[in-house]
């Protein structure tokens, strides 16, 4: 296989530019804020019992929030310098924990939840869509279509509350919160892994149900034209069996959904952030909601940056993989 160098270079440069754009948004927003956020943050830290902070820190905050008198471009470089040294500031609501420590704790859980649930949802959704498309205009097709449309239409967080209510609060079948039980030891042992899966079940189920609809309808609408196309007629005449023909059509119809997969990473992350706060799952989403409720700007900014970077890397990985899978995409880069 020819390695699509041009395509990869194009994707890397796009990755870099989008990354810089996101950083700049993050840089610009607090500077558009009215009043003196540094003073607010400083007094909040004092109130939270931060006896160790000195006016020097206030000075540093003022630099971070663009209140220093230095010209904007110097502030920007200071901001970049801080960023690349992993210095994201100190959280207010979790004082005196640095933002980077909180992120290091929270990010693995979120990644685990996002990756597992959107992969499962992609798999189930495509197969349901294939089933609906191959049995189209039957009762089964209608049932699957209506179900997935309804799931896509229902407010996500209400669904999460209902599921939490039924299975955890009244049903007592699943835990109400947390990522693993108290009684297990962290590490690579069987009880811990089982406990993690057990705790992740409900949040993952909700995310899967919410994101299923898009895949189902996308696959259904892709596989129907694919089943009517010439190469399928040809294979039919060659005497391929029915299930073989379905799988050929399926393989062609899945390509547009693959592109959607890369783009859905960002979308799913949105859902995950909401679900995590509802299921008290200790990922970045839970911290994000807490940070917003206490107007913890350093933590909000840190999470924003982290999530954007994670989503970008995910996109990048899928794009590169896709470039190897589909030759037409590679050529688009030339």
């Amino acid at each position, binding site marked *: 296989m020819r390695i699509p160098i041009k395509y990869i270079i194009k994707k890397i440069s796009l990755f870099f530019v*989008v990354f810089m754009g*996101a950083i700049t948004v993050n840089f610009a927003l607090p500077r558009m804020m009215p009043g003196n956020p540094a003073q607010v943050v400083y007094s909040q830290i004092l109130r939270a019992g931060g006896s160790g902070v000195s006016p020097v820190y206030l000075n540093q905050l003022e630099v971070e929030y663009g209140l220093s008198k230095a010209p904007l471009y110097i502030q920007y470089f200071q901001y970049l310098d801080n960023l690349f040294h992993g210095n994201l500031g100190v959280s207010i609501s979790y004082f005196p924990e640095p933002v980077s420590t909180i992120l290091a704790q929270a990010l693995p859980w979120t990644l685990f939840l996002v990756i597992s649930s959107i992969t499962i949802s992609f798999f189930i959704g495509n197969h349901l869509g294939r089933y609906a498309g191959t049995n189209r205009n039957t009762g089964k097709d209608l049932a699957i279509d209506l179900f997935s449309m309804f799931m896509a239409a*229902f*407010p996500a*967080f209400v669904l999460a509350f209902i599921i939490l*209510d039924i299975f955890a609060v009244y049903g007592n079948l699943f835990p109400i919160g947390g990522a693993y039980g108290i009684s297990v030891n962290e590490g690579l042992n069987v009880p811990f892994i089982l406990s993690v899966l057990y705790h992740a079940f409900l949040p993952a189920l909700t995310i899967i149900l919410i994101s299923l609809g898009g895949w189902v309808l996308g696959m259904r609408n892709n596989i129907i034209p694919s089943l009517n196309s010439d190469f399928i007629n040809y294979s039919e005449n060659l005497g391929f069996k029915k299930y073989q023909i379905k799988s050929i059509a399926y393989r062609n119809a899945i390509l547009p959904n693959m592109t959607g997969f890369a783009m859905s990473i960002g979308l799913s*992350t949105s859902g995950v952030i*909401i679900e995590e706060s509802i299921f008290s799952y200790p990922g970045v989403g839970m911290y994000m*909601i807490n940070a917003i409720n206490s107007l913890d700007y350093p933590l909000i900014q840190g999470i924003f940056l982290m999530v954007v970077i994670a*989503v970008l890397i995910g996109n990048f990985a899928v794009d590169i993989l896709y470039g190897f899978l589909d030759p037409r995409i590679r050529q688009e880069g030339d």
Partner: protein
Amino acid sequence: MEEKSNLNEKNIYNKSTKSKVRTSVIKSTLGTLLKNNKSKTGFIMLLSIITFSIIGIFYSPYNPNAYLFKIAQPPNSVNLLGTTGYGQDVFSELLRGAAPTLMIAFTVGLLGTLIAVLVGIFAGFTSKTTNAVINIFINIFLVIPGVLLIMLFGTYFMGIRQNLGYLPTIIILVITGWAFGARTFRSITLSIVKRDFVLSSILIGESKISIIVRQIMRAIMPIIVSNFFFTSMYGAMGLTFIEYLGVGNIQQVNWGTMLYWAINYEAYLTGTWWWILPPSIMISLLMFSLILLNFGLDEMANPSLRVFKKKKRDKNE
């Protein structure tokens, strides 16, 4: 005087023919839509929701903001849908909250689609470098998770602490909602510009604006309408997210704030389902009607999805 009125008449005549052409495009889109069973159902659903909201503007059984009743009463003859945990009438809130919810959804749909069409067609029509720059710009907005931007902008608007009504909500939703459509319109314009009928118009000497309006806009009309529905869905869903996160204006009555207060009161734990379900179901119905309308549009834009019963039977046998 007479000359002037003559001129006016001429102008009016010109205008009316132009608008006739435009309405006929919309009419034909609507006409084909209503032939499809799914989109017909969606259309009827949407019309009834809109009627519901119009009734709500002028009439509600009780003042939705007043705490008139016992708290958390299940549905009964006085309160059709029971009362909230604070003693308001749920049905009145539902009725009053319909209009703002629809207003936000469709305003976001309209503005988001407008920006998407402008940016997308402009990108498809300009030089390669401008196109690439716009593409990067669109990608930035696509990649950043929408909820994060909602939270970020929401907290900053909250920092301003001024009562701007629904303006911040709409601004946030338009900012986070236009990019998806712009991406679609950009790629479609890029492919249409290369086609012969556009080339011939360019050779004839038609102006760019005229080509955009007469050739391209008309060709992609179903997709524009579909994008409007999608962005409106995003607007309705986004409103509930904004209100749920508490970064909107939680004092106003709409379906999003109803959910916010219900969840804040932990209605899902206290078993007051009549409080949390009605707004959820109304939002679902609204989204459902738009999805159904879109289904019909899909079949319009992609004829192979349409049902040709006889032909299909022949093929199977």
